[in-house]
């Protein structure tokens, strides 16, 4: 099990964002959106949240996803990782069919 703080990430939405806000942001702003269930492993972390959890893929090399800390709530992170992008494309449950909202 890794630690998210050891990874180089960008905050897309700040701590305290609601889970709904994170999902809506991803669905609205990313052309490629995949949905996973709680407990899905991404960058060696288990993803927590209300299913379905939306992951946004950018240029085939960055993933934006919600990350939850018990004391602070949920925030959206963006992390670069081509291998993880490919794994998501192969293992995520469903993909949003339409383009941008």
């Amino acid at each position, binding site marked *: 099990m890794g630690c998210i703080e050891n990874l180089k990430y960008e905050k897309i939405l700040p701590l*305290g964002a609601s889970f709904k806000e994170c999902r809506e942001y991803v669905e609205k702003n990313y052309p490629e959106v995949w949905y996973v269930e709680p407990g899905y492993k991404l960058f060696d972390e288990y993803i927590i949240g209300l299913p379905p959890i939306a992951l946004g893929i950018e240029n085939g090399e960055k993933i934006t996803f919600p990350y939850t800390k018990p*004391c602070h709530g*949920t925030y959206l992170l963006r992390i670069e990782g081509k291998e993880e992008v490919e794994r998501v494309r192969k293992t995520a449950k469903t993909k949003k069919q339409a383009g941008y909202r």
Partner: protein
Amino acid sequence: MTDPVAQPETAIIVLGCPEVPVQQALALYVASGLRERGTDVLVTGNPSVLGLLKVSDPKSVYIGKTLVLETCIGEIVERKRDCTLCIVFAHNDAGIAYAATMCHLLPKSRVVVVVFGKDPEPLAAEINFPCETITEKAVHNPAQLKTKITRVLGWAVSRT
């Protein structure tokens, strides 16, 4: 009279951030009550909340086993751990996210979500997954919440 609720074999108590005082008292109460009745109990939460419990209960008379939340979730995902009863304490959005996760990962378990804090109703409204909920405005005084939990767990009947 209501039939007593069957005593669960195993229980996981999921705690949120320790910033709301009633959680600490109720965690000790619930863990102790379950263990006293024969349930194998695991308390999970972040290191801070587990640290508070361990200091409050240095001989582990009440809480029993503990495990850091991320590790616990990992073990459940990997099917190394499950439970008959899962009680999730939630006083913020993160707590609801953890409750949803537990509901999803433990589909055969009885999941009870205790929603509390200064303004629990909007949080409780976010729950759209199958579970039992106990909702009560509670920050410093655990009495009302304790009564509700006692009733839901069937202890009010079994003790009379």
